[in-house]
């Protein structure tokens, strides 16, 4: 436990001193900010048109379906897509780089065990990732200063992002544990994440049990509920299972290394 926390603290220290982590954070926040800007101006434009239609058609109920929650939902979907790029870059070096530097020999001969190494690294990187995600909450905070969106979906959406981050990071850790090359780890994680995003695309056409399975395995559908203010056991279980699977595979790969 103490040793795993030491691994976590060391990872955090390295990340905070690393230009890579700060570059990712800056890129993430700048892009998220631009998405936010474009959504706000598009929202304002659409708002004007709706007002015009409502006046022309003498139907004020048209405006009732139009509110800031749409913008909040859109913002969360955008940040979700950004995570697809951010997580692989952040996680690619996690184990692969230890191997290349030879520091895995230090970690794996210390009384911490492969499970402790994986847990420590995961926690350290997750804190960095959560920091970035929390930073993107700034934009929604600005929205609450100048408008009045429902607060519920904002909180549940942030919870959803936290869960997605953990799940994708665990996948990235597992891929990184399979190689000594950062580039291979990064690309592998990106491809796996992309597949998780696109899993449901052919679901309807495939149909049957397979179609249903593909639909259920897709990541975005499980996230969408969170952006609507809905926290369901199934969605939480999906992300927790994905994270657990990733960590399990990462641990198994590290543990088996000495037997090869």
């Amino acid at each position, binding site marked *: 436990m103490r040793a795993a926390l030491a691994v976590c603290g060391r990872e955090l220290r390295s990340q905070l001193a690393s230009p890579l982590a700060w570059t990712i954070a800056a890129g993430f926040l700048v892009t998220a900010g631009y998405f936010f800007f474009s959504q706000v101006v598009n929202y304002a434009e659409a708002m004007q048109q709706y007002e015009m239609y409502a006046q022309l058609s003498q139907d004020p109920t048209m405006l009732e379906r139009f509110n800031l929650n749409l913008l909040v939902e859109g913002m969360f979907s955008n940040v979700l897509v950004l995570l697809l790029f951010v997580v692989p870059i952040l996680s690619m070096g996690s184990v692969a780089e230890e191997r290349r530097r030879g520091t895995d020999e230090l970690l794996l*001969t210390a009384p911490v065990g492969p499970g402790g190494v994986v847990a420590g690294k995961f926690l350290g990187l997750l804190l960095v990732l959560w920091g970035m995600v929390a930073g993107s909450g700034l934009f929604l905070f600005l929205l609450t200063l100048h408008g009045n969106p429902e607060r519920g979906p904002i909180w549940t959406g942030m919870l959803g992002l936290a869960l997605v981050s953990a799940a994708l990071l665990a996948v990235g850790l597992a891929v990184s544990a399979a190689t000594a090359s950062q580039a291979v780890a990064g690309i592998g994680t990106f491809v796996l994440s992309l597949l998780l995003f696109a899993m449901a695309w052919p679901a309807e056409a495939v149909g049957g049990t397979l179609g249903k399975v593909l639909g259920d395995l897709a990541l975005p559908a499980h996230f969408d509920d969170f952006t609507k203010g809905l926290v369901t056991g199934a969605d939480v279980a999906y992300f927790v299972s994905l994270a657990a699977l990733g960590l399990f595979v990462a641990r198994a790969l590290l543990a088996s290394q000495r037997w090869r």
Partner: protein
Amino acid sequence: MLAVRSLAKRFGDVVALQDVSFEVARGEIVGFLGPNGAGKTTTLRILSTYLTPDAGTATVGGHDSAHEPMAVRRKLGYLPEHPPLYLDHTVREYLGFCAALRGVPRRRRAAAVDGAVARCGLTEVRDRLLGNLSKGFRQRAGLAQALVHGPEVLILDEPTVGLDPQQIREIRELIRALAGEHTVLLSTHILPEVAAVCGRVVIVHRGRVVADAPVTELTGAGSLEEAFLRVTSADAVEGMA
């Protein structure tokens, strides 16, 4: 304290170890010699639990390194062939992390780090980044990492590589001072080093032990160098990594 019995290990088609057996008693300093590629590093990696053997056993304090790795790790200090350094850490940060990783309680950590820093001659660079240090200091930081938690057994893979003669002498004296309270197995291919610090020598060649005797016995007939060449030149020396 250390016992290696009939160790064998191959990597694909390359046979690294065929049949390696030797023992190291408590408090002893044993030199582990051999040409490059003889199987020194592989043997030490098996003892340190980083690898497992294909056949045979390696035990540390009675614990099997393959099947009771955690018990072995608790007894060990280990300097791998390439010092496992985090170059974005200062010497003290790094050693603090190593101490925590090895289970040194928080309140004793600062003292353990200061002790290792002083013993390994790192005082003047203790707050500098490892990435900015010379090879000699990096090697010493690697050695400090192996000592910081006061382990019973030290396994050192070429501890004096990259050091200048003055530093080599300091490290030798340090290792000699460890005798008695620590058990040390140290690999090297620098022969005077062995004569200077070790009580006994194990020589491996092509994955087999070809000599195992007190230094005085091996050097009785001439220099250690002659003895080394005699036992390792039975056939041409071809390295394997």
